[in-house]
């Protein structure tokens, strides 16, 4: 019976250790070597657009160095910037440029000025089901499809007969309202003074958008160019009826003729040093940028 009591109290003891922080696995210091040889953890957080890319970098980087482990979280550009302001992250991923107000907050809060790095370009593609008889679309048309009080709710309004979609109703696929992709697409389509019409399917991931469209002949949606699969069709885009249409291709993005492309940013707190600098340098190197291209984004011209 004494045995039972001891077993019973073990959790209490261990619990006490955990709470007071004396547990053997516990250490507050990032730079203490642990058994697996991982010495440094870089905290990387932010945009959902970049998260897959950031993950790919992290995965490759630990293979190369075997001592630097990168913690990658998504959650959206807003989260990354918020973490930067709170000083709880080493590198923030952002699919939009940091706002001057946020820059100031971060500087004030942490005493360090966030440094900006453009790590690649993202072209948003407009996707439809392959059976939809449409190949190109203009920004104003998209605005009427997605915007509040928009006039285009049916495929016939676009002047096409979508026989694959008996109801003729356009099913709008969108993203949850705080993702960088959502912000950028809204800004590109509607500017700052108009919002999206509610009632779209706000899916959680870029991949989800493409997958749902691939199964849904009535649907239209937007997502990073890199998410294209063989089950969907990408539309060529023109800024207005009279302008030329551009397909979302690497060349069109690099020549800046494709209208809905944006740079992807990483922000470090202060001038990066040590391991963080090494990591960012590697990301911008030829090898790092190869991964950008592999994931369907557009690489920056490497140094």
């Amino acid at each position, binding site marked *: 019976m004494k045995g039972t009591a001891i077993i019973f109290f073990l959790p209490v003891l261990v619990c006490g250790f955990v709470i007071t922080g004396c547990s053997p696995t516990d250490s507050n210091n990032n730079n203490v070597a642990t058994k697996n040889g991982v010495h440094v953890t870089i905290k990387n957080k932010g945009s*959902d657009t970049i998260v897959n890319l950031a993950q790919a970098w992290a995965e490759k980087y630990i293979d190369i160095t075997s001592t630097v482990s990168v913690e990658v979280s*998504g*959650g*959206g*550009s*807003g*989260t990354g*910037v*918020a973490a930067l*302001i*709170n000083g709880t992250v080493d590198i923030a991923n952002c699919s939009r440029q940091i706002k001057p107000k946020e820059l100031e907050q971060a500087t004030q809060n942490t005493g360090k000025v966030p440094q900006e790095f453009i790590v690649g370009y993202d072209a948003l593609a407009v996707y439809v089901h392959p059976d939809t008889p449409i190949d190109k679309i203009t920004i104003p048309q998209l605005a009427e499809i997605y915007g509040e009080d928009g006039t285009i709710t049916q495929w016939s309004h676009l002047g096409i007969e979508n026989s694959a*979609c008996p*109801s003729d109703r356009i*099913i709008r696929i969108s993203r*949850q*309202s*705080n*993702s960088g992709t*959502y*912000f950028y697409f809204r800004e590109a389509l509607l500017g*700052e*003074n108009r*919002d*999206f019409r*509610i*009632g*779209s*399917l*706000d*899916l*959680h991931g870029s991949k989800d958008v493409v997958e*749902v469209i691939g*199964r*849904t*002949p*009535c*649907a239209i949606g937007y997502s990073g160019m890199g998410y294209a699969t063989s089950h969907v069709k990408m539309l060529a885009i023109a800024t207005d009826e009279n302008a030329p249409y551009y397909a979302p291709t690497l060349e069109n993005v690099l020549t800046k003729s494709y209208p809905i492309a944006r740079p992807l940013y990483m922000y470090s707190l202060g001038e990066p040093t040590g391991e963080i600098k090494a990591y960012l340098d590697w990301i911008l190197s030829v090898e790092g940028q190869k991964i950008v291209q592999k994931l369907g984004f557009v690489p920056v011209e490497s140094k």
Partner: protein
Amino acid sequence: MNILRKKSKANLPFSETVIELFIRLCGISSIIFVFGIFFFVFREGAGFLFSGLNLTEFLTSVEWQPTSLNNKRYGAFALIVGTFSVTALAMCMAVPFGLGAAIFVSEFCSPKLRETFKIVIELLAAIPSVVWGFIGLTLMNQLIIQVFNAPIGLTMLNGSIMLALMSVPIIVSIAEDALKAVPDSYREAAEALGATRWQVIYRVLLPAAKNGLLAAVLLGAARSIGETMAVLMATGHSVNIPSGPLSWIRTLTATIAAELGEVARGDEHYQVLFIIGILLFTITFVVNLIADLVIKGIRQE
């Protein structure tokens, strides 16, 4: 348990006093945590709740535009309707099955079969909600597209099937307890009068256990209202007043799960998400309270 209080506190050794204190502290921990949950959720949302948020708009408007640049609107009406409609539809499926199964298990089963069913129900209850969501996203999505010829299978129907499957185990186990709590003398008396087993159930057991059955349904509903991952993945996640089972909807819980990760701390949007949390907490608290009172009501009789 306190008929015999052998020793007065003064005689207890010091270690014993400490242990007793610890036990008492743990004992009231649930109270502390429930208040703690309310306090901390309230704390994060309070600022905007009392100054800034238009409560009428929050509760009646369908305009959920928390990230608009010039015209932020926080109308949660569609989310509230979404939560309740998906729960109602789920209950339409779960209640007949749950109560039916409870009656069968408690009144018609041999002991061995009963054990088997109870184990199955327990295992059903153990499947994590993200797995239900995954099933909804893949299997059920395809099924609904094929069966109903719907454009998208991520609908209220999909979500409510998942919720029904998740809440059935709760309904069964609580309803079965309620039926078991009816004294055997009731059954024997009715049988002595020549009633068949079904008559006993229909005329005697169900009226006698009706409070417990009601509580079972309420707790099942509370579970559905609070469920997050399954509805996030399976209902289409669209701010929309549903027009039928094949509409897509968005619930209160899914909104928090989808948007909390992306808001800056202290932001209005962030606070509104905590206010939704307060709303959810209040709803489930009240439902649980009612269920508890209903159950306690039987015991006092």
